[in-house]
């Protein structure tokens, strides 16, 4: 057994165990930390697959930034204690069905792989492999062939940032919105006084009174201010 196989088995076992820990731990914080462990294991796989740049991005962006955001929100909402949701469930039949489908998925993929559905890859020699995924190689492809998608991703990130800020901020009343609100209140008051004067002049007045009423609210309105 080569060193690579040995490392694969160890790190793979840790990755799967961490994923299981994430699924079944009762505390949200523990789940997030298990996910960090899983992401770190996947970063090790990236290193083994000669993608060192992607491994570093995985650590800084995924295990760093994204998971800190998760932990922050979990602590913000005070939902560290999350029940597994195994009691009082409306869709209780889902749990066994989900397990069955997950196992089925793994079996199908394993069968497809082991019966040779994936075309045999070209043998890559080690010299090629070690100069494969450094920052230079990634950048050379990213800034030439994938330049347009790269710029689009910048726009996407800007849109997401603005969206998150707009969604998560408290609505603070500005001067302008206050003025608009005051205007609306004044209009409503005016309407109320109009209706009141109408109501006051309504009894006793019949068909001809309606014309008077129509004229009456206009002078009454400034009085309301």
């Amino acid at each position, binding site marked *: 057994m080569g060193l690579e196989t040995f490392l694969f088995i160890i790190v793979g076992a840790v990755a799967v165990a961490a994923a299981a820990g994430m699924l079944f731990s009762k505390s949200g914080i523990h789940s997030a930390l298990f996910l960090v462990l899983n992401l770190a294991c996947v970063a090790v796989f990236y290193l083994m697959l000669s993608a060192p740049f992607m491994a570093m991005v995985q650590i800084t962006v995924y295990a760093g*930034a994204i998971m800190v955001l998760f932990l922050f929100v979990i602590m913000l909402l005070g939902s560290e204690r999350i029940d597994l949701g195994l009691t009082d469930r409306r869709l209780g039949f889902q749990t066994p069905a989900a397990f069955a489908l997950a196992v089925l998925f793994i079996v199908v993929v394993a069968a497809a792989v082991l019966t040779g559905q994936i075309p045999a890859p070209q043998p890559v020699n080690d010299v090629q492999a070690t100069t494969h995924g450094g920052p230079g190689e990634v950048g050379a*492809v990213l800034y030439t062939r994938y330049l347009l998608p790269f710029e689009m991703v910048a726009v996407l990130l800007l849109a997401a940032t603005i969206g998150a800020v707009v969604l998560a901020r408290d609505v603070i009343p500005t001067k302008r919105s206050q003025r608009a609100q005051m205007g609306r209140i004044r209009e409503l008051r005016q309407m109320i006084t109009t209706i009141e004067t109408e109501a006051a002049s309504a009894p006793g007045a019949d068909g001809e009174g309606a014309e008077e009423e129509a004229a009456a609210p206009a002078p009454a309105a400034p009085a309301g201010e």
Partner: protein
Amino acid sequence: MEPAPLNISAYVVLSAILFAMGALGVLIRRNAILVFMSVELMLNAANLALIAFARFYNQMDGQILVFFVMTVAAAEVAVGLALIVVIFRTRRSINIDELSRLKD
């Protein structure tokens, strides 16, 4: 000195296992944040498969795609967590069984 190199199928099967566990998490957990983390697990499994294919077919495109998946995941997490915070503020709960107002 030269052991048999690890086959690509090992990585693909591991990726499938992680993906299935992520899908399992989406289906069995009822907390919106946990569902979100399971989605991240699934994305990560797909990334692992992409990197493995990039390595074994000696193409850079797989790694570039992983790069884009990571940025999109970051954007998705920012907006999604903001949504969860807003939902928690209005409904006082992020149990997805209770968030069924759209049915009415």
